[in-house]
């Protein structure tokens, strides 16, 4: 029985794929000799050497360009953008090049590459190092978007992402790095499937849909709603926003009749809106009340503890919002 932190799972997941396939190479700032600014890639350089695990200059465009060119000529690179906020610096590569070239060439070239990053808030880093930007990525046709909530999923979804023949944006959540999970099958190969959500808690009264760092909060809230208000909520960990597991989400929303989404990103155009829109279009008749989104307000994130905690959905806010909506 092995207990793994989410932080160590990042390196474990990458290593699993590098051992299996020598076309997998890894590059980014401070990833090799330093083992990552969050120590998420420690040990990779020692095991795979400087030809496969490469430190780069602070050149986000060059990093993603190198990954793209390598992917279209036979490698399967994993590129790291240190903080997801820095995607803004290399947005051309993400929004115009990597995502569109397969379509523009009508399939002459493929882009089997992964861009992983530290995403999300909770570490008091302020507005330029705390964003959850999965909505940016999700809005672009051609990309796949993954955000694991557990250490095991970091490993299994990384495997799925590396083996996928499309570009995958992989959002590791910074606030989860020190979370731990018991992983019985860690010695073997762990491979998950993109586009498959996981039901973390079954429940009959309402469905809570959450992602990444919001998953443990939603689970805690569900336990409290049960204990304090007698509500039995299902919690779905979306894991993959694109492709999106609509059968699981809509199935639960229909069965329970109530749908709540918990998102860390700012409210406007959040992924929860997409899920709510799907549910109202496709299972309106089964819904017994309006779907409700629990989000961060439409603000840049502040740094101070009290302010950041107020901004991000808290267990307390999830409990009171759902409780009030359900009249419990």
């Amino acid at each position, binding site marked *: 029985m092995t207990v793994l932190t989410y932080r160590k799972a990042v390196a474990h997941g990458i290593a699993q794929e590098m051992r299996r396939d020598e076309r997998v190479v890894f590059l980014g700032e401070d990833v090799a000799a330093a083992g990552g600014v969050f120590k998420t890639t420690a040990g990779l350089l020692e095991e795979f050497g400087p030809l496969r695990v490469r430190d780069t200059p602070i050149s986000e465009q060059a990093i993603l360009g190198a990954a793209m060119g390598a992917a279209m000529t*036979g490698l399967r690179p994993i590129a790291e953008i240190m903080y997801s906020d820095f995607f803004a610096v290399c947005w*051309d590569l993400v929004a115009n090049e990597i995502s569109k070239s397969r379509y523009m*060439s009508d399939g002459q070239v493929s882009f089997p590459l992964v861009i992983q990053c530290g995403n999300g808030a909770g570490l008091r880093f302020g507005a330029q190092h705390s964003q959850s930007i999965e909505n940016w990525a999700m809005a672009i046709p051609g990309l796949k978007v993954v955000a694991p909530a557990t250490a095991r999923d970091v490993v299994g979804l990384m495997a799925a992402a590396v083996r996928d023949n499309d570009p995958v944006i992989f959002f590791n959540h910074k606030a989860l790095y020190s979370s731990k999970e018991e992983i019985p099958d860690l010695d073997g190969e762990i491979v998950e499937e993109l586009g498959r959500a996981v039901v973390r808690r079954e429940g009959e009264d309402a469905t809570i849909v959450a992602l990444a760092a919001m998953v443990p909060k939603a689970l805690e809230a569900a336990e409290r709603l049960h204990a304090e208000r007698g509500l039995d909520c299902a919690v779905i960990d979306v894991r993959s926003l694109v492709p999106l597991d609509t059968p699981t989400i809509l199935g639960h929303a229909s069965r329970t009749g109530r749908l709540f989404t918990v998102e860390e990103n700012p409210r406007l155009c959040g992924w929860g809106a997409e899920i709510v829109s799907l549910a109202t279009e496709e299972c309106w008749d089964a819904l017994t009340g309006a779907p409700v989104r629990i989000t961060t307000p439409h603000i840049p994130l502040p740094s101070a503890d009290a302010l950041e905690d107020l901004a991000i959905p808290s267990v307390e806010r999830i409990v009171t919002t759902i409780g009030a909506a359900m009249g419990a």
Partner: protein
Amino acid sequence: MSVDTSAAFAPLTGPVSGDVSEETALSLYRTMSTARKFEKRAYDLFLQNLVKGTTHLGIGQEAVAAGVAAAMRPDDYSFITYRGHNHLVARGTPLAPLMAELLGRDNGLMHGKGGSMHLIDAERGILGSYAIIGAQLVIANGAAWSAQYRGTEQVTVCFFGDGATNIGAFHEALNFAVIWNLPVVFVCENNLYMEYTRIDSVTAVQNPAADRASAYNLDSVVIDGNDPDEVYLTASAAIARARAGGGPALIEAVTYRHGGHSRADPAKYRDPGEVRAWMEKDPMITYRERLIGRGFDPAELDAVDAEIVTEIDAATEEAKGGAWPDLSRLYTNVWSDGGHAWRTEPRADQAAQQKEGLAP
């Protein structure tokens, strides 16, 4: 990881000049003439509203495309810009699918999904025409890195305009190529203008690409981009060195576009004297004279030209005869599985369970 190759490889100190073989000379002539005539035809079709959207012609710049392509191995990679027709012609892309792509037909190179600005011919190593200025420089590095890692001795050549040299990606790419000692040759087609603005009116140095290269310890040369022999010989030297592990180089080829930036731009922003002077340096005219001076029979060159016209006529007819793209293509090749379905459909096991009421 920085690799010091200075001891083993001679620096590229200047343009390489000299005579090329008769066979190479004739092939350079043929390539330039094909590119010129192809683009003139594309322009006619644009004026007839058969080529839609926009085109960026490289008329006047053919010597760069022809000279560099002749120095490349068939499995080398080219990265080009939206002004890219010349480069596909030079690397042997069949003319009919190329023309059909400009016409938006199903028999086009990308079945009408790319158009003039996004030509790609992966089979011949043309890994894309990039319409966002400077993007291809960083991407070319990736192809070069991949070849280096795979040990294939393929060289990547990356073309870009003078305007791209003031974009951040240019600077990131040059530094990156040097520190990773990549087998990449950057070729700036300096036609003196960006869209409608002279490059020297907005740039702090005289040779926008070569002058900056030295800041990154990248060997660079400025050459006459209207002389296909000089382009060919210089590119051959740079490519051979890169292939042998000697690292990247940058060639700034000074040339001129005869027409406007795009579409039907009359290019009135240029000084008539400047235009006249460059027209006299038209590579088609000067190279033809050089070949005749070397003993080629003008009739032989005329025969080459006539053959090319026949070829382009046939390609145009074939392209025009193509059907419009099948409408289903709108949705294909977003994902590698051929589709665009971002929503997961019920899986077989799930659907079966749902039927039995076992799953939600």
